[in-house]
């Protein structure tokens, strides 16, 4: 079991949990967090390099590093792991954000030890989810990632935190209720009559034994289940409240990584296992996600709280991820994965910066702030970079992702897809409106509050956190080919055949 490299993505956070439980002071806590998250980054970078080498050497299996260990034997439930390019990209993203999040919560108060314990427990769930290829373990890790949010927001949050924490937890768990039914349903149709039932994604897809009638029932279950976490309209309402109340590192992880669980799950479970229903029913969800994209962007325009602006912007961008996945062609799906990476890094950067600004000014209301460019130039410049990435400036990550998505979407020649693509394109313009509005108001313009003049710029740990994220955002923007090569294998082979894609 421990000879498989993937298992260490769960083992390292578990060791970190143990280390945190034994820590006595802030210094030890920070050491554990930093060493552990650096180890995770190192592991995922090594995995990336090794994966590319294996592929270059002509490895054609759908998933690599596959391992499977019996868990509940009579039911054929296994702890099965395996990754392809997409999961590796997600693992890399998660480890970077855990790393940046640890630095962003350098001075968390109160109860730092418990805070990190829950944060790392959350990352156990996230990493476990991305390495699993068994529906049961996948679902289990998914829920493990959700529940720490309640305490993280409830105890360390700000504002209307009790309400937000409860709303977020209940809505996400409501999604997972549908998901559980979907998974059990898939399990019972996973093999032809008389065959061994299985929870293994690859085997289910190979058996292709879910008949069309059941697909029509199970596809919406799983898609809505994951879609709730992907902030699909009308199930997105947890997102603004939750993000606004959460402490910095939690907003980063939640918007940066957890919302990707939704997109990844829709793609890996709903569409991968039930391609026929996906083809037929995609239009329903296209409408819903299209609404998310535009509605999220418009809502962001009228908000005055920095975190709310970003939360609605996340709704819009994550809606775009689901929107692109539902286009069911290679280009748009590649764009969707790029958008997941891009949005993950960019939003994490945004939330980190907002947390840092809030920590100094003690307000997140843009009407009460102004001229921060003069007061804290480093943070302000970073904010502008994040904003540019968000509105799709070439050279940063947002541009390549959105470009790919819209090119892919436009390949559909029918009226319905065209109209919705054009509508979704409009969101770019609206994004520019709210980003520039914030940048203009917050960073330039007159200083609103004389007390703000005494504030200091970023500390070293804050700089480290933000620079890490900016480098990654720029890397995707400058070398998009590297990332599209990483993920294209999945689309070029089995997946394409499955969907009958071009």
């Amino acid at each position, binding site marked *: 079991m421990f000879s498989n490299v993937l298992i260490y993505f769960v083992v390292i956070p578990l060791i970190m949990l143990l280390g945190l439980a034994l820590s006595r002071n802030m210094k030890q806590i920070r050491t554990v967090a930093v060493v552990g998250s650096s180890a995770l980054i190192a592991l995922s970078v090594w995995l990336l390099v090794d994966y590319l080498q294996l592929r270059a050497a002509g490895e054609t299996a759908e998933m690599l590093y596959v391992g499977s260990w019996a868990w509940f034997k009579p039911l054929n439930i296994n702890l099965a792991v395996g990754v392809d390019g997409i999961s590796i990209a997600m693992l890399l993203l998660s480890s970077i954000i855990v790393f940046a999040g640890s630095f962003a919560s350098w001075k968390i108060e109160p109860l730092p030890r418990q805070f990190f314990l829950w944060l790392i427990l959350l990352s156990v769930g996230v990493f476990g989810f991305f390495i699993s290829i068994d529906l049961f373990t996948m679902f289990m890790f998914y829920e493990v990632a959700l529940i720490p949010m*309640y305490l993280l927001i409830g105890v360390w949050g700000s504002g209307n935190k*009790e309400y937000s924490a409860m709303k977020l937890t209940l809505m996400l768990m409501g999604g997972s*209720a549908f998901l*559980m039914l979907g998974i*059990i349903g898939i399990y019972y149709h996973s093999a032809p009559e008389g065959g061994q039932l299985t929870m293994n994604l690859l085997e289910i897809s190979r058996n292709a034994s879910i008949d069309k009638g059941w697909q029509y029932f199970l596809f919406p279950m799983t898609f809505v289940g994951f879609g709730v976490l992907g902030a699909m309209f009308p199930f997105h309402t947890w997102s603004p409240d939750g993000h606004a109340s959460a402490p910095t590192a939690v907003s980063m992880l939640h918007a940066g990584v957890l919302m990707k669980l939704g997109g990844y799950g829709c793609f890996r479970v709903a569409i991968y296992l039930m391609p026929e229903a996906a083809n037929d029913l995609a239009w329903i969800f296209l409408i819903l996600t299209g609404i998310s994209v535009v509605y999220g962007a418009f809502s962001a325009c009228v908000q005055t709280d920095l975190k709310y602006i970003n939360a609605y912007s996340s709704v819009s961008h994550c809606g775009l991820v689901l929107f692109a996945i539902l286009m069911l062609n290679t280009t748009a799906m590649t764009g969707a994965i790029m958008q997941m990476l891009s949005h993950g890094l960019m939003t994490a950067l945004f939330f980190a910066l907002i947390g840092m600004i809030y920590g100094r000014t003690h307000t997140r209301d843009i009407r009460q702030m102004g001229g921060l460019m003069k007061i804290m130039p480093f943070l302000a410049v970073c904010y502008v970079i994040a904003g540019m990435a968000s509105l799709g400036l070439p050279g940063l990550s947002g541009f390549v992702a959105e470009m790919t998505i819209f090119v892919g979407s436009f390949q559909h020649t029918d009226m319905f897809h065209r109209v919705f693509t054009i509508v979704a394109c409009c969101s770019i313009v609206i994004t520019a409106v709210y980003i520039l509005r914030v940048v203009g108001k917050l960073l330039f313009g007159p200083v609103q509050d004389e007390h703000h003049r005494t504030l200091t710029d970023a500390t070293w740990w804050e700089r480290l956190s933000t620079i890490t994220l900016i480098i990654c955002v720029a890397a995707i923007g400058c070398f998009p080919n590297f990332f599209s090569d990483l993920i294209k294998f999945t689309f070029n082979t089995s997946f394409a055949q499955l969907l009958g894609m071009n």
Partner: protein
Amino acid sequence: MDYSQFLAMKQEIGLLVVFLLVFLYDTFMPRRSQGGLSVFTIILFAVFTVWGFMPCMGSCADSAFAGMYVTSPVMMAIKGILNVGVLIVLIQANKWANSEIQIMRRGEFYELLLVTLFGMYLMISARHFLLFVIGLEAASLPLAAMVAFDKNHYESHEAAVKYILTAVFSSAIFMMGLSFVYGLTGSLYFSTIASVVALEETSAMLIVALAFVVAGVGFKLSLVPFHLWTADVYQGAPTSVTSYLSVISKGAAAFAFLVILTQVFGAVYSDIWEWMLYALVILTITVGNLFALRQTNMKRFLAFSSISQAGYIMLGVVACNAMGMASLMYYILVYVFSNLAAFGVIQAIENKTGKVGMADYNGLHKTNPWLSFTMMLAMFSLAGIPPFAGFFSKFFIFTGAIAQGSIAIYVLVLIALINTIVSLFYYLLVVKAMYINPEQPVVGAFRSACSERIGMWICVAGIIGLGIVSCFYDHLLELSGTFGLF
């Protein structure tokens, strides 16, 4: 008479020996060495529990008294699960039983408890309704005395009166149903009734009889609409008795219910009781949840939560297959640990401060971090959150039910699943009180008694271990596949 048939009753006889030893110790030991009674009972029962899990020596008979009593490894397993639960209850009750008020009467507490357990054994193993009724009565009536154990509390008396009246009334209904069954089939043997029921046309009489039987057992399980006694009794009874009532008594009744419905009325599953159970499950889960939402007393709160949990347990009966049976037993096992952990914390705080309101738990994590941690695990497990055992038991009971395959069962499970979200809300309310509410702690820091801590540690180990370690469920599934009723 062939005395070797008594060998089949290994566990019943063992329990009887434990009972007699406790009784003799209580009666004849001089007053000054009475201090050891609790420890004596706990150790004796622990030995008995371990012994109960050991395989039978040589070839044991599997039935006695001309087939009125049967035993099989599955029944041994469910009895073993109940034993573990009773052991935890005994450990947790230690402090209360040795308190100043109860110390003179704790002998009776132990004896009554063992007698009711004996009754539950008979309910599980009976294959003749006469024996079953004896078991049912032995399991119900002494409980009323236990509920009234807090002699100085008015609520305790009121609870006991409510309990005994409903118990007797429901027994009457049950036996009314039995008389109909006897009139229809001319026998009280499960097997004979089953064969007659399978042959004959479904008559209105049978439907009425079945409804009466379901109502009678439904009372023990506190299924809605037979649940009205539950909240008051749970609140009024001493907490040790409440935990016994909510876990052990419910577990035994659930298994007995499964046996009766599948063994006796299995032939009319889709004709009559499938739909009856659907309605009962939906009602029980939903009503239990909705009432639990607004409770402010922890014991009342857990009463309604246990009503809705009973609804989930019933899904194992609805499944009507080997996996449903295994999942039902596993659910009971997990429920024993989760619910007793919650009751353990409530009891520890009640013994120390006398407080049982949910508001008294505000800020508990500042003064008693371990108690609040245990409580949180219990709540997460009851709500079915991984990686705790409750998640696995819920997942398996749903999976077992869905094996049926009809669309109706998918809808039923979906309703149950949506209800888990409602239940998550109120379980989180407790977590919120302990960890999030800003009020100053009501309960001061204290160190709970040794016995209470041991009880809670066992429960915490169970909550964490029972799910992740797969062998428990695998074993139950294997047993019910090989020796089950299907």
